[in-house]
């Protein structure tokens, strides 16, 4: 029963991404939305953790939230997929349940 995890906080502000990565099972999906999109960026102190997580998890980032914040796709960690709201909806359908790390 795979889970889609949603993260809406910057990993530099709160620990929701770190906690999610600790408690997500192999094969789960994670979508970074709202301020969570900063967790998808390369070249920062959190990137290595996220890159490592990609071997067990599928990670997605919500494009409209990236664009709003001036985060270009070229700044996103390789292997993280950019989706729109339609893609977000599809992820909630493909997984059995959604765990929002509020």
């Amino acid at each position, binding site marked *: 029963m795979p889970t889609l995890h949603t993260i809406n906080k910057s990993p530099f502000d709160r620990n929701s991404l770190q906690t999610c990565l600790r408690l997500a099972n192999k094969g789960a999906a994670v979508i970074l939305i709202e*301020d969570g999109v900063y967790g998808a960026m390369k070249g920062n102190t959190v990137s290595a953790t996220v890159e490592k997580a990609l071997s067990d998890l599928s990670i997605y980032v919500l494009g409209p939230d990236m664009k709003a914040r001036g985060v270009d796709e070229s700044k996103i960690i390789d292997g993280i997929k950019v989706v729109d709201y339609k893609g977000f909806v599809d992820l909630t*359908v493909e997984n059995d349940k959604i765990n929002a790390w509020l």
Partner: protein
Amino acid sequence: MKFGIQVNEGPYNHEASVTALNFVRAALEAGHEIFRVFFYHDGVNNGTRYTTPPQDDIHIVNSWSELAEKHNLDLVVCVAAAQRRGIVDEGEQERNGKDGNNIAPGFRISGLGQLIEAGIQSDRLVVFGD
């Protein structure tokens, strides 16, 4: 697929209700059903028609109302959370002796059981909050 949506934050302090709006629109466009949108915590502030944002700003309350009318959505504001925060419909106005009400079109005030029911009846529950 049938979705239940929970919104925990007010319309302008936090992006959660905008994300929920866009998610609901995309789900409807993809042919899914929205069983109910349940507004909890400060999310109840999405349901006051007294909201008057500047003209160049998004009108989140009206966006919910319009979406509800177009797609016959069930927008439910939690009564306990609403009472704490001064969101009032005609029934609540009468029960609590208030001098008016402020509920926006398309919204209704009801109990927390409506959220639990959304969890039971929906194929997916998606929570937007802080």
